[in-house]
């Protein structure tokens, strides 16, 4: 033993052994059969605009994980299918992923209607689905993990911000005519009237067809609605593409954010990349992540994304962060459980906590929703959002809204011994509620 060797402390020895282990682990990863990760996002059809970037995100995350030696010493392999924005096809493709490709986990879906379409498949074949988009709530499945925001993590705090910080007294709820805007607006209307005493005539609700491009009349109506002397805001659940002509018309009719701010739940960096945002400065969006978040984790993620796309202009958005969180949670649960078996993962993942991109942590709750901070951002002229407000701590996602009569008494808890997605605390039984039917009936009455 020479003198230099004496400096070889036990700690160094352990580090060296671990490094060697990681190396051999990496080598094994190539040899063993891979862990299969299914990606169920539309690459063609109308939803390709939103979903194709999510497919790329998961592929990037898989590659990053493989560079770190995979999981459990096995390599990850992406299995990509294209449901082509066709809802029934989503169910077929989900079945294909689970039965033919025997994937261990699936990341996918954007619209609620596609999620409803695959739900029975995942429950029947006991698959795992990570769903990354903000949605209307009123659902909790044993096989689905909702990494996007529930209404209490987006819509409710956003409206509270408008009332408390901006002093808004009149609300125009404008949305596209389908389930997410209708349910969200129903929750918001109940919330505004019951909790804040907003009068009927101070709420305007308006729905438009999908892909609506002629906003002249509605924008002019909003302008008149705002000319009554009370501070007015627009709460927008307008979906996807229709936002571009809407914001264009706002700008052209001279509606400024300082007069009538628009707060949007479906407009992110990606939607804004299709418009000149100069006239929109100051309009708001509520999300759980913005590309402009000033943390090193976020800058690392953005830089990796830009390099992956080889495009300096590539933007990141909220559902991408949701996939980032969901992927890391699943990976952590796999490490914890030591297997990819769905039943083991379902138990292991509850309580798993991973860093999010906004400088905090996200935890998986027993109701399969996660904790998220709520951020309010104002549009800037470079197509980014400037964060003007955020909740002091993270908010846990609530599967069943407290503001709707049918779902007020429901809760979801997928831990033993309850293991129930719609436990009624009033009657003390699982599945004893008809909340979903009640909600649909209420919708039909409107």
């Amino acid at each position, binding site marked *: 033993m020479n003198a230099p060797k004496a400096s070889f402390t036990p700690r160094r020895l352990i580090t060296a052994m671990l490094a060697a282990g990681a190396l051999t682990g990496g080598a094994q990863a190539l040899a063993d059969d891979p862990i299969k990760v299914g990606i169920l996002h539309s*690459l*063609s059809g*109308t939803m*390709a*605009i939103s979903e*194709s*970037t999510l497919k790329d995100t998961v592929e990037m995350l898989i590659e990053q994980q493989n560079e770190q030696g995979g999981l459990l010493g096995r390599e990850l392999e992406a299995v990509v299918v294209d449901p082509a924005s066709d809802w029934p096809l989503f169910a077929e493709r989900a079945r294909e992923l689970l039965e033919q490709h025997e994937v261990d986990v699936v990341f996918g879906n954007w619209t609620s209607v596609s999620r409803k379409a695959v739900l029975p498949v995942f429950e029947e074949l006991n698959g795992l689905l990570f769903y990354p988009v903000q949605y209307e709530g009123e659902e909790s499945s044993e096989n689905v993990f909702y990494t996007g925001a529930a209404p209490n993590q987006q819509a409710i705090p956003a409206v509270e911000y408008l009332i408390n*910080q*901006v002093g808004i007294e009149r609300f125009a709820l404008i949305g596209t*005519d389908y389930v997410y805007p209708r349910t969200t607006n129903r929750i918001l209307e109940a919330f505004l009237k019951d909790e804040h005493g907003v009068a009927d005539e101070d709420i305007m609700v*308006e*729905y*438009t*067809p999908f*892909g*609506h*491009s*002629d906003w*002249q*009349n*509605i924008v*002019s*109506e909003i302008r008149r609605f705002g*000319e*009554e*002397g009370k501070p007015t805001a627009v709460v927008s659940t307008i979906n996807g*593409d229709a936002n*571009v*002509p809407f914001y*264009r*018309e706002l*700008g*052209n*009719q*001279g509606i400024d*954010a*300082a007069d009538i*701010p628009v707060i949007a739940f479906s407009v992110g960096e*990606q939607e804004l*990349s*299709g*418009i*000149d945002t100069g*006239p929109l*400065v*100051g309009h708001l969006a509520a999300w759980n992540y913005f590309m402009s978040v*000033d943390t090193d984790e976020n*800058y690392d993620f953005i830089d990796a994304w830009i390099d992956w796309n080889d495009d*300096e202009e590539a933007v990141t958005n909220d559902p991408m962060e949701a996939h980032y969180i969901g992927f890391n949670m699943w990976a952590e649960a796999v490490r914890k459980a030591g297997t990819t078996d769905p039943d083991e993962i379902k138990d292991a993942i509850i309580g798993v906590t991973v860093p999010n991109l906004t400088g905090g942590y996200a935890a998986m709750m027993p109701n399969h929703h996660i904790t998220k901070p709520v951020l309010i951002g*104002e549009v*800037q*002229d*470079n197509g980014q959002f*400037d*964060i*003007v*407000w955020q909740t002091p701590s993270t908010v846990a996602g609530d599967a069943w809204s407290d503001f709707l009569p049918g779902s007020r008494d429901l809760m979801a808890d997928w831990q033993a011994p309850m293991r129930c997605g719609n436990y009624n605390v009033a009657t003390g039984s699982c599945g004893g509620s008809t909340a979903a039917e009640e909600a649909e009936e209420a919708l039909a009455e409107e």
Partner: protein
Amino acid sequence: MRSLLLLWLLVLLVVPLTAHAQPSADDEAAIELLEALDVDSFPAKGEAIDAIVASDDERARGWLQALLDGRLQRADDGRFVIVLDNSGRDWPVEDALSGEDLGEMSRRDLDRIGINNALRNQLRSVIAVVDLYSPNVDQRRTSAERLLGEVDEDLAGPIEALIEEEEDARVRQRLTLALAIHRLEQGDIQAVEHLDGSLHSSARIALNRATSSDDEALAQAATAALANIEQNLRLNRAAETLYFGLSMGSVLVLAAIGLAITFGVMGVINMAHGELIMLGAYTTWMMQQLLPGQPGLALILAIPAGFMVAALAGIAIERSVIQFLKGRPLETLLATFGVSLILQQLVRTGISPLNRTVVTPEWMSGSVAINDALSLTLNRMYVLGFALVVFAALMLVMRRTRLGLEVRAVTQNRAMARSMGIRATRVDILTFGLGSGVAGLAGVALSQLTNVGPNLGQNYIIDSFMVVVFGGVGNLWGTLVAGLSLGVINQVLEPWAGAVLAKIIVLVFIILFIQKRPRGLFPQKGRAAEG
């Protein structure tokens, strides 16, 4: 805050604007002022802004403007900088104090001093007050406009003085109105007279408030003035709805007029018509990529380019698919539907599934104010004009040129035309190219109204067929009248039925109409009707 403003005003009044000899606060004081901005709380920032206004530093306006634009930032070393261009990863910056060029800095090393809507309002008001004294008329106009409904006790005096001196009639009128609104809020009944007939919303809001005043005479006067204004407003609203309708109609006409040629005149059911529109829109985007910094020129050049691209694509479709399916409408429909899907996916994989940004040139954004209650959006006005020009040009081609004559001859009686020496195949190609090219023109115009993405065409194909069928197949005038009237009907229905129901009502109306008059508004008569 207002008293500080007043202070600032007084200084400005006493010291003539040109006297930049006023010693600027030294840099230390300036740094202190700016440091007060770099806090988390928005109310504290508001106070810091007031302090900057009161400081009378001559760089203050520049700082406030930069703050308003989100370009006032702090570097890691604590220096305050103004970002000159915040696109990309590295930004060119200059020193906020000395104005010295500091080269490029990474966005990681810069912290933006954020503002919210409340501060934005405050900044705009502060800058507006400063700009009232600006030698630039446009700045004075904007700031006078801004101050409507924002005048308070402290500002009233200086504004009164300014009205006396102001040369520009528009600024004077605005300031007088602003002052009258302030007086009305003070309970001055004479002010009602000034506001009577004003269509501006802040005048209406002030009058509305006055109607519930304790002073009965004032309340009555305000109610009477409001009733007057309301009547005037109704007229304006009707005019606005008509404009909305014509503008929507012009989009329908543009989208349908190409189809009126290929479907109406030639009888080809071309489901890829929407994608030809999309090609025109993408051509506009392409031209803007080729000519960065000149969106206006690119848009004008896109008109011929969009026509050519769509025309060539149309001819390719005609040669490769449609000519083999002549007289088999069902097969044509299915084949062209396939072509439309292929074109969409080509754009998705070839360019991107994401929407492309098409910039609206300066001269096409915003609106022209006819009066305070009625302003017409410029981009739609251009599209309306463009639609009429395209229609007129097309009429000319069909009525006054050899090609038009041949087209009409071939569609009326193909065999007879051929025996007269007309090359029917060539006419087919040219006609289809013309119709497709016009679809491309529609795309160029639509790029200014809606988003440019792979789905653009899908949104217009149904509407296009609807307009052509409603107007009467084979009749260009019918397409024009049908498009414009459907637009107006839709916009008249929308306010009371809602957008979803209005669309359904229009569709039901067309179905009933077609039941009654299967050949549309303007059925073709005589021999042409048999073809």
